[in-house]
């Protein structure tokens, strides 16, 4: 196999769904971290907090992909084959 000779077989072993599930799992951990209110002081958000927020945001976006009703899924006007020709 080479760049000029793609084969469909490796796509069957794609881990994309596992990657997305991992991000969602991390996002849920971030949500749980936010529930720990034992800290009395209210400190300012730093880069680390925004990094966690970024993970939470990506997890929410991924969960939004599966929460969409089946009938309302957007279908592209053109088929991928047209662009991959």
């Amino acid at each position, binding site marked *: 196999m*080479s*760049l*000029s000779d793609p084969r469909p077989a490796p796509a069957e072993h794609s881990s994309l769904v596992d990657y997305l599930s991992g991000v969602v799992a991390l996002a849920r951990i*971030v*949500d*749980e*971290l*936010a*529930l*720990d*209110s*034992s*800290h009395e*002081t*209210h*400190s*300012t*958000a*730093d*880069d*680390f*907090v*925004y*990094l*966690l*927020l*970024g*993970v*939470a*945001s*990506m997890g*929410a976006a991924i969960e939004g992909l599966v929460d969409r009703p089946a009938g309302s899924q957007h279908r592209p006007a053109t088929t991928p084959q047209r662009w991959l020709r």
Partner: protein
Amino acid sequence: MKPDELVATLAELERVRSAILDLVERQAPQLLPTPPDDAGTERTVFDLLVGLRRAVLGSPAAARDLHDVLIAQGRRFAQTDDGARLRDALASSAAVDNLRVAWETVSLNVLDGPAAPGCPPEAWAALFADAVVAQGIDDAILSRFRPEGFA
């Protein structure tokens, strides 16, 4: 150069990069702590943290890019009502404080501070200068190479 040769070159460069990282870790053993004896949860967490440190130290430019992307996304999310609520809750969470300590210990803070686009952060280079270059070299020897007045 043909595409196949380009890919082979990239794969070879990746092997070289990995081998150099192995060498660096052997020369600076403090970067690769001794694993725990038991094979339970503690060992699993240890392996996860070592893998994370190796990813950060071994691919600093990529790790910095991902770090910056997540922070930028977090700042955008914080502009929404849900994001702002979560930001405030995270900022006042003791669990986040604990996680921050863990992250700083594992990453050695090499992703923070200045970095040119697409380049490793300056803190990463400074860490290796301290951990590797100065390791085992007597300063009395180095001082002979230092011009007078040079700190």
